[in-house]
């Protein structure tokens, strides 16, 4: 059994040798808006690591004859990963499992031949320089059916050897270059940007043709699941790969369109702070408040560009908004200066949140519970305290709770428990005799980055719920 974590540096190194620079694997700010809330390791990176770990002990040259890979769960960077040989028998079959924090992520089944084969030479089949960074294509979902193309085969042996020394020594460089090409096809070409690798099944022949390319074509797109099937051909391999077309970050309604839902001066008496206002529910809240004449300040932690884009959109259309950096896990001491010395907020809307859908059915994770409490309990309290410390006289503070408390999904116990605590904090603060009204609403599943899934799940439009919140149709 082998263990490791994948760091962003590991990811960048793999991108460098594979040519798969999809930002889902490399860019924390970009990836936080996607399906898993943070960067995930390339599926092929994990597979090659697992095969390399197997070959360390095997110590004999092998040539792949068949390989079947099924991806069941993502491998987030910085999470504990384990590779375990489930079967390695005399029939030249090996089965390897990769799990993340004990949960099955990948199953690899390989049939191989042992010994020295022509495929172990053939360095003339592929280009030996490492691949240059190409464009990560973004193909619209309605254009997928006719896609076909080719990618060149690359393998920088020295760089590959540093990362996967046993694979370099004991396996076929041609076959490795083909596996690298597959991750490049999926992550950069088809479907490219919106890809989530689901699985593949390849057969390798003993004959190697001299074409230095791998070709691919779409054979099927299942709209029910946004699942793409590609046929591929390389110098000695044919097969199919399965890829999900993942949803793009959710674009919320623009400021001009939202103006019609509020009166011009409906909120002109408010100075509102929207914590986590650069996207999602916070973004919709900020836009509606500004459309109603409020002076708004949105906070961001890592999404500075999104916050600036929001400011530009609102101010160029007549609204009043600023953006400030604010980390609820470590609220700034110079908050007064950031807000402006003369600017005193009257309303606060708290939308700070980590990635929500990280739970595992039937399991309570203390680590996950702590993460949620850091945002939904401690972060909330610390934020209120730092605003009180600078002399804010907040009339109202909004805390978003969730219908998950009523529904109790089996994979969200940590989230539910922390939201219940957040509601309790609101009730305590209300009873504590201050003038501020703390109110919460149990919101249903609303259409934001957080609720995007691969399967068809109905997410509700946030607009009517945010309108109720800011117009005062609420209970505490």
């Amino acid at each position, binding site marked *: 059994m082998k263990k490791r974590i994948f760091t962003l540096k590991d990811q960048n190194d793999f991108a460098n040798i594979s040519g798969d620079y999809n930002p889902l694997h490399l860019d924390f700010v970009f990836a936080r808006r996607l399906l898993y809330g943070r960067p995930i390791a390339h599926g092929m990176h994990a597979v090659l690591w697992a095969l390399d770990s197997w070959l360390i002990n095997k110590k004999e040259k092998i040539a792949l004859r068949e390989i079947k890979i*099924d991806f*069941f769960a993502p491998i987030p960077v910085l999470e504990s990963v384990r590779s375990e040989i489930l079967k390695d028998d005399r029939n030249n079959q090996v089965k390897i499992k990769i799990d993340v924090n004990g949960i*099955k992520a990948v199953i690899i089944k390989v049939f191989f031949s042992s010994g020295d084969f022509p495929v172990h030479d053939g360095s003339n089949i592929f280009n030996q320089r490492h691949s240059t960074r190409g464009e990560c294509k973004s193909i619209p979902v309605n254009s997928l059916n006719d896609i076909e193309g080719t990618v060149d085969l690359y393998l920088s042996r020295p760089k590959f050897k540093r990362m996967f020394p046993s694979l370099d020594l004991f396996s076929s460089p041609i076959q490795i270059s083909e596996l690298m090409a597959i991750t490049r096809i999926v992550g950069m070409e088809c479907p490219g940007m919106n890809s989530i690798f689901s699985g593949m099944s390849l057969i390798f022949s003993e004959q190697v043709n001299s074409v230095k390319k791998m070709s691919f074509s779409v054979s099927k797109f299942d709209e*029910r699941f946004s699942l793409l099937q590609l046929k591929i051909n390389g110098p000695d391999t044919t097969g199919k790969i399965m890829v999900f077309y993942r949803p793009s970050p959710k674009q919320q309604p623009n400021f001009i369109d939202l103006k019609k839902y509020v009166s011009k001066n409906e909120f002109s008496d408010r100075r509102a702070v929207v914590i986590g206002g650069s996207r999602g529910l916070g973004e919709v809240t900020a836009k509606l408040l500004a459309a109603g004449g409020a002076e708004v300040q949105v906070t961001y932690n890592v999404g500075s560009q999104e916050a600036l884009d929001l400011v530009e959109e609102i101010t160029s259309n007549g609204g009043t908004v600023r953006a400030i950096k604010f980390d609820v896990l470590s609220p700034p001491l110079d908050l007064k200066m950031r807000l402006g010395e003369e600017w005193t907020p009257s309303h606060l809307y708290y939308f700070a949140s980590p990635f929500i859908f990280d739970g595992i*059915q039937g399991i309570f994770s203390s680590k996950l519970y702590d993460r949620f409490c850091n945002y939904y309990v401690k972060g909330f309290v610390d934020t209120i305290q730092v605003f009180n410390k600078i002399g804010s006289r907040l009339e109202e503070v909004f805390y978003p709770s969730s219908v998950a408390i009523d529904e109790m999904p089996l994979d969200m116990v940590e989230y539910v428990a922390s939201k219940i605590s957040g509601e309790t904090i609101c009730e305590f603060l209300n009873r504590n005799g201050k003038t501020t009204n703390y109110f919460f609403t149990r919101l249903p599943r609303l259409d934001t980055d957080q609720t995007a*899934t691969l*399967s068809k799940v109905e997410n509700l439009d946030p607009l009517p719920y945010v309108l109720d919140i800011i117009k005062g149709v609420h209970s505490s």
Partner: protein
Amino acid sequence: MNTMIELRNIFREIFDDDLMSISQGTMRSNLDDWDSISHIKLVLTIEEKFEIRMTTDEVASINSVNDFLDIIKKNN
């Protein structure tokens, strides 16, 4: 073709458990590994095996082995 046996073999393949046993009453909520990805794999494999195609509503409605059996019976 014994449908239950075929389904059992499919479940064993998808969940990668050669000793797995299922019954008509096996529920999605009882199997920790029966998540959305596994669900899709089950649907696609069952469709291919029984030469049927399920609607999006049927896919969403499946919560047990019995639900699969009903759909297979309806389509055949």
